[in-house]
């Protein structure tokens, strides 16, 4: 059995006819004694013969036309400039676009945050909203939010409450007092900025 294993390793060379004469003689002797190895050797020789006889297939008639088109497209893709820059592969282009979009989004978000903080008299992190109010409307004092009003939207009687001494249209910030502490329904708006508006 151990001998069979050793001889099996030589079967391929035997089929290729590349065995050294001494090894070939030895193997021939073994094959005469061992029917299993003899059958395997026959099988390998036969298999080799059958594999060589396998029919060949041919490329489709339009193979070369398709290839030429692909080359043409490929060449164009590598030459065509986009905004003066050499073309990048579509997959890379998608990655670059996604990165650029993400960067733009981050930049826009940060810019919004920074500009809001710069304009707002309130500490960062406090939401500031703008609301439309009509003349003579009672200003809400219950809202915890800090609200920006334009002067022309506030009734003149309430101007002093906003620290306004002269006519103007400049924006003032106002905040409502905490609703939980105040049950008083008198319209009032507390001035956040103690400085009067100058024109």
């Amino acid at each position: 059995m151990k001998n069979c294993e050793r001889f099996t390793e030589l079967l391929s060379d035997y089929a290729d006819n590349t065995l050294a004469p001494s090894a070939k003689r030895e193997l021939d002797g073994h094959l005469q004694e061992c029917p299993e190895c003899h059958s395997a050797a026959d099988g390998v020789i036969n298999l080799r013969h059958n594999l060589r006889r396998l029919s060949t297939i041919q490329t489709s008639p339009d193979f070369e036309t398709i290839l030429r088109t692909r080359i043409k497209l490929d060449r164009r893709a590598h030459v065509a400039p986009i905004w003066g820059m050499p073309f990048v592969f579509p997959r890379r282009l998608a990655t670059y676009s996604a990165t650029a979009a993400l960067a733009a989004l981050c930049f826009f978000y940060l810019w919004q945050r920074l500009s809001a903080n710069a304009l707002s008299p309130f500490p960062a992190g406090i939401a500031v909203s703008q609301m439309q109010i009509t003349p003579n409307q009672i200003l809400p004092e219950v809202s915890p939010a800090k609200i920006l009003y334009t002067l022309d939207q506030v009734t003149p009687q309430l101007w002093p409450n906003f620290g306004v001494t002269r006519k103007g249209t400049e924006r003032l910030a106002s905040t409502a007092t905490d609703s939980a502490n105040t049950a008083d329904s008198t319209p009032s708006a507390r001035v956040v900025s103690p400085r009067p508006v100058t024109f």
Partner: protein
Amino acid sequence: MPEPLQKFDKSISDEDLIEKFQRGDLYAYDAIVKRYKDQLLNFVFRFLGNQEEAEDVVQETFLRVYRKRHAYQRVAKFSTWIYTIAGNLARTELRRRNRRRFFSLSSLGVEDKEYEISDEMLSPERHTNTVLSEEIIQKEINRLSPKFREVIILRDIQELSYEEVSKIIRVPIGTVKSRVNRARLRLQGRLKHLLEKNK
């Protein structure tokens, strides 16, 4: 000045052709395509078992040759270089196909169906014995693992030397011989009945 295609007869070596192509002669490229398209198609087809996929891989191979023509250096045989490209692409395609099969439940068993031998196929009216044998042989080749499949195709179907196979798949010549031997023994074991009938 490029030479017309007719001038590139078989007396011109592959290495001369690729050199001409490297210098810009597109007729030389056409001659290379004509020389290798069917050889490569048969190699890739036996490896993948699907003609359409094989043709795609061969197209991609020639496209790579076109793009990377300057990467070829005359120290190696051109046939080794182009077979290496085709083999790498075929292996990639096989991995991709396995991934697709892994993720798609519906495709399970498709490959088996492709080579299933129905009663109808067995009828002599529809298929000759040769076709049937080839189907069975191809099915058994596909059942081999890729590393065995590749060497047996290159050695026994493409009839390349052990040395060339070794260079193409980049493994030592001893390993190639051992793989070829094991692949042959495995195939002959599975195809024993068919081989005895075809004797």
